[in-house]
């Protein structure tokens, strides 16, 4: 049984939910569960169904892409306060990479069906969540672009 009260207290401590009102926090807490992983555990794996989203409270998570015949490539690490993944928002609701715990990880997991239901039923909550996720997505997109540019490869002086 999830203790909604204590989960909502945890949500209030997170920067991610700072701008959310009390009532919204209570509502979102109803979709959340406390989770813990050991080092090496996968929060989710590529191709799996994106049925939850996660916020890290303690520990580090590596996002990895696998290619046949190569060791996995870590393209980003996430740390306390970071949200993992937005595939739960976008059809076909599938993860496109692995999320592997590098340390003991504690966090909150939000049931995607529950969240999507609340967003659908109350568009104000939907809007607030979208507003919170968009900067995360745009920062990741910028980061991915910069990584793609391979900035530190020999740069020509002008």
């Amino acid at each position, binding site marked *: 049984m999830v203790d909604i009260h204590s989960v909502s207290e945890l949500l209030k401590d997170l920067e991610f939910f700072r701008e959310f009102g009390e009532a919204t926090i209570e509502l979102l807490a109803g979709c959340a569960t406390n989770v813990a992983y050991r080092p090496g555990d996968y929060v989710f794996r590529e191709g799996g169904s994106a049925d939850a989203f996660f916020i890290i409270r303690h520990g580090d998570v*590596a*996002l*990895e892409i696998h290619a046949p015949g190569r*060791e*996995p*490539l*870590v*393209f*980003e*690490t996430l*740390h306390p306060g970071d949200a993992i993944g937005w595939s739960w928002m976008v059809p076909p609701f599938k993860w496109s990479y692995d999320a*592997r715990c*590098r340390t003991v990880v504690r966090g909150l997991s939000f049931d995607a069906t529950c969240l999507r239901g609340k967003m659908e039923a109350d568009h104000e909550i939907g809007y607030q969540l979208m507003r919170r996720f968009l900067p995360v997505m745009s*920062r990741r997109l*910028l*980061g991915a672009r*910069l*990584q793609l*540019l*391979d*900035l*530190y*490869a*020999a*740069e020509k*002086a*002008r």
Partner: protein
Amino acid sequence: MRTAGERPGAPGGSADPMVPRPFRVTRRRRETADTFTLDLVAEDGKPFAFAPGQFNMLYVHGVGEVPISISGDPADGTRLVHTIRAVGKVSAALCAMKRGDLVALRGPYGKPWPTVEAEGHDVVFIAGGVGLAPLRPAIVHAIANRHRFGKVIVLYGARSPADMLFAEEVQRWRGLFSMEVDATVDRAGPDWLGRVGVVTKLVERAEFDPAHTLAMICGPEVMMRFSVEMLTRRGVAEDRIYVSMERNMKCAVGFCGHCQWGSAFVCRDGPVFRHDRIAHLNAIREL
């Protein structure tokens, strides 16, 4: 040590800024697959004074001459240190030098990092790739004069763990209780336990007081641009952000115009610039 604004090419180096002095390689260290650090000692035995952020012109006989920043301790007047990445003819020849080889050197040139202006402030050093080399003297200076500064924070981004410069030293800095050091790489294998992601993420998270922070940035231009953007977004004033620029050089003393960038000569007016003074140049694409 000299402070910002004093004339480059001054007494500590060559008496005549155009006349090179012979230096002998006393040590060569491999930093990464393509980057080496050379320790040099003057043949004439005279000391060499420089300010953090300044550079020398290094001449390899029969190959050519290139500008290279000084990466050593500014308090050590006897051993001159340069960290060089082999990208072309001259830099590769420098990287191939062995103990006992001679290099002709003139300098030091250019405006240094604002180590005096930084006093009393939180100081954030942001380095990308080999950009850690020109920042190293300023970091070493900050560590040696720790009480003069607020927080001292070093944020370092590299391509991969194998491309990180001064890895052992960065690790040592991390172990000091008096400063914060965070590093990130663009890509890594599963064994890497540090951060993966772009350096701007470190800037976003670092704990400093934006109203009392001075930042010094050195790395690829795109990386510097986004780092400046993140710093200003966090509230650091543009007149307290300094960047080090690179342009091809010939004379290094403001005569030939080779390094011209807008109305500035990078060799004489830089390579360290205060960002508010050059922001308009960054907006022009073809300079």
